[in-house]
């Protein structure tokens, strides 16, 4: 039984397409149109010749209609998915900035809408707008000045605070920092495009296209909900993973074409890294596919949530797989700690050192899009996709179950998926804030000596689960419980791996500390 919710965008689009095409069909004249012309017989041709068609526009349209409907439906769905992607992805840089601010006890970006018009010492961006030729920007300039006079800073200390990024100059419900993404985009869009003199210009221009287009293409196969997807092919998982792996090629192109040693090293590292994580990643995903018995992403989600199917999230069945998927996906999207290709400390942003302007901005957006895709995929493969946490358990509760059921019915699956994906991205940010970048040889060793064997173990676990324990009924509780507890026990054992004796031997008393500071009155006679 396929999962479903009331947000049936796919169905709406389908019915809208067929309704509109039917309307076109009905609007066409139903009568035959006779365009025949008969040439009377002459000495040259004894029979009169009839040329030209008699056609019925409705019939002709009807033969094209399925194709047109499919095209229209696909166009609408692509637009919907792209819109959902772009709108919900706005939260991603916001989470990145603000959560890493919390993790490092900093404030993070504070740009709000109000930042657009708040000026310093009475001079606002309005003055800039007014300088545009032919007074083009004058209305905007007036607006900015007006807004500044109404909601501007009331005291210069506020401005100083703002410049020093010290106090938040606005209201928390305006999501301070959220609008930094727009500001960044404006900056990137208005920057000059520079191609290095000795760069391979064609490849240099083609590389961003490869990276960005394949990244967007990944989302063709990622469902945002049971009814929000652009394409749902039988083997969508394989398509998606294949496309996911194309971007490193573009990275390599970019690194090569820039004619810059840092960029080249970055590109080379990207290619070297690829072999280390891509194979474990695919084998891990294969484990998920084996367990779910399908290469279709929507069916994988259904397997985790269906009433008559598994009914247990994959993370409880394949905790090892979840950990491996997380690690390899971080490597795949080249985020810290596996961001050697762009290692800003040593390679000056690596392969995109030479890019600037909107190309850089879009590639950066593509980078975040890939991270976002990784988060959504984790949610789809391991966190039950668009199912609410413990949906069936909560709905089955004796007294409050009805309430829960109503809430779950009212909440579209998209919401749960987005919450899970954003939380996963917070985990990505958390990892980024905590761990240091690994070295090239370390990721290769880690990939080949740990990730690859572990992913095979995960695959074996999935096969055994599928063949021996899967009965077509919901999982018996002890199976996920045993696997999760085993993973938890392993985690605890690894987490308390501390040599207490050596620690005691190392522990030394405080060195000379001024417990009471030398200040007047702090001495005792």
């Amino acid at each position, binding site marked *: 039984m396929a999962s479903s919710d009331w947000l049936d965008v796919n169905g709406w689009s389908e019915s809208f397409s067929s309704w509109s095409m039917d309307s076109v069909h009905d609007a066409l004249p139903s009568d035959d149109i006779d365009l025949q012309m008969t040439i009377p017989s002459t000495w040259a041709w004894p029979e009169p010749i009839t040329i030209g068609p008699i056609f019925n526009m409705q019939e002709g349209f009807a033969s094209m209609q399925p194709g047109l409907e499919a095209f229209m439906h696909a166009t609408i769905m692509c637009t919907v998915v792209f819109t959902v992607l772009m709108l919900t992805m706005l939260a991603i840089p916001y989470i990145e900035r603000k*959560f890493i601010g*919390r*993790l*490092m*006890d*900093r*404030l993070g970006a*504070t740009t709000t809408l109000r930042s657009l018009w708040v000026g310093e010492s009475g001079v606002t961006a309005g003055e800039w707008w007014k300088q545009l030729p032919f007074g083009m920007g004058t209305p905007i300039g007036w607006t900015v000045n007006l807004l500044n006079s109404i909601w501007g800073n009331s005291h210069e*200390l506020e401005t100083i*605070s703002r410049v*020093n*990024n*010290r*106090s*938040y100059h*606005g*209201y*928390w*419900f305006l999501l*301070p920092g959220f609008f930094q993404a727009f500001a960044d985009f404006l900056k990137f869009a208005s920057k000059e495009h520079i191609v290095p003199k000795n760069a391979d210009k064609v490849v240099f221009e083609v590389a961003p296209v490869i990276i960005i287009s394949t990244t967007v293409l990944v989302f063709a196969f990622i469902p945002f909900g049971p009814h929000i997807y652009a394409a749902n092919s039988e083997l969508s998982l394989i398509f998606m993973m294949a496309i996911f792996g194309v971007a490193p090629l573009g990275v390599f192109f970019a690194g090569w074409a820039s004619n810059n040693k840092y960029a080249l090293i970055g590109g080379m590292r990207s290619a070297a890294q690829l072999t280390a994580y891509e194979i474990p990643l695919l084998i891990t995903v294969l484990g998920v596919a084996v367990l779910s018995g399908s290469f279709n992403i929507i069916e994988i989600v259904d397997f985790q949530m269906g009433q008559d199917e598994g009914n247990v999230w994959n993370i409880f069945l394949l905790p090892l797989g979840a950990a491996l998927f997380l690690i390899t996906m971080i490597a795949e999207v080249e985020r810290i700690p596996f961001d050697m290709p762009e290692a800003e400390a040593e390679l000056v942003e690596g392969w995109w050192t030479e890019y600037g302007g909107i190309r850089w901005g879009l590639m950066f957006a593509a980078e975040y899009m890939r991270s976002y895709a990784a988060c959504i995929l984790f949610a789809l493969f391991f966190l039950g996709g668009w199912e609410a946490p413990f949906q069936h358990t909560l709905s089955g509760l004796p007294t409050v179950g009805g309430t829960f059921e109503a809430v779950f019915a009212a909440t579209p699956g998209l919401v749960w998926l987005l919450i899970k994906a954003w939380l996963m991205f917070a985990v990505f940010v*958390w*990892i980024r*804030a*905590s*761990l*240091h970048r690994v070295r090239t040889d370390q990721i290769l060793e880690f990939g080949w000596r*740990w990730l690859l064997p572990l992913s095979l173990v995960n695959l074996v676990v999935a096969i055994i689960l599928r063949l021996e324990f899967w009965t077509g009924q919901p999982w018996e509780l002890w199976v996920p419980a045993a696997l999760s507890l085993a993973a938890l026990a392993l985690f605890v054992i*690894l*987490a*308390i*791996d*501390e*040599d*207490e004796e*050596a*620690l005691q031997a*190392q*522990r030394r008393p*405080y*060195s*000379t*500390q*001024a*417990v*009471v*500071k*030398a*200040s*007047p*009155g*702090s*001495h*005792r*006679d």
Partner: protein
Amino acid sequence: MSYKANTGHPHATPNFRNLLIRPMWMTLKTALRTVPFVGKARFLKNDYHGQPTVMIDQTTMERVGPEHPSAGQKFAADRETSQVMPFVERPVTVMYPYERLEDLEPWLFVPGNYFGRIGIVWETCTSCKLCIRACPNDCLHMTTELRVDVLDLPDEDDEWHGYGSELEEGGYAAREKEEYDEIAVGFDLINAHADAPQQYDFAEVIEISGDKATVRWSDGSGIETVDSSSLKRAEQDIVSGQIDLGRCMFCGLCAEACPFESFFMTNEYDGMSGFSREELWMDASRTRLLPAVHQERVDMELAKRAEREEKKRSRKAARAEA
């Protein structure tokens, strides 16, 4: 993942715990500390080597005083960030030296066992110059300072009481300032860029007759005859008092070299900056460490000296008998 690595410390061994769990937990703690109410939880506080750190101690409270703007206040006024929910956003810039981290956010302040300002207990210094020899950067210098004979200071029931020397004519004497406590309370160590006030008035002893002593005060207030019981013996001695802080690299070799428990690296981090190189010459009053700061070490040293003094006196007495 726990292969043997000779890193020297169990917390530096590259295992799962140290590479993954600890850093993740540390950053998570930092993030959780910014959450209202939850951030106050005990388990989120950073301890120092497993021992709880108490930074708003009595001394700090006394130092900043009830009038100080940061006293009794969690955040300074401009650290409140939005009118509606002041706790949602929170800036972290500390306006040192007007705000101090240990006053504002003691849970963030971990007193390190780092080497801060050099502190010297003059009273136990023997001017042996070992610190100066140890200094690789040649930044220590000897100065002549007046100091109280600490062997006279201890309480009467201390075992080394009474081994100090008597006042001598031509020697020095010190008297504790009566109004010293008032001066100390009024002195703002944070904002006043000045030396800490003197605790003693020093004087040159001109004449001793019975229990009266005639002294000439060093501050130029003239000659006065006072009870000798109110005076303590003082000495003018060479001590290792001056540092060119601009050359110092805080290696701590000087403190290691000192055999007399008088040379210390403190963990005080302020008062070490200046606008010119000359200001980085820390004179004796800025390196001075009061004996109370390292009372135990000073007591050890005093006991040692008292023992020596006792032996010397008994030898002298034996020689006098013979």
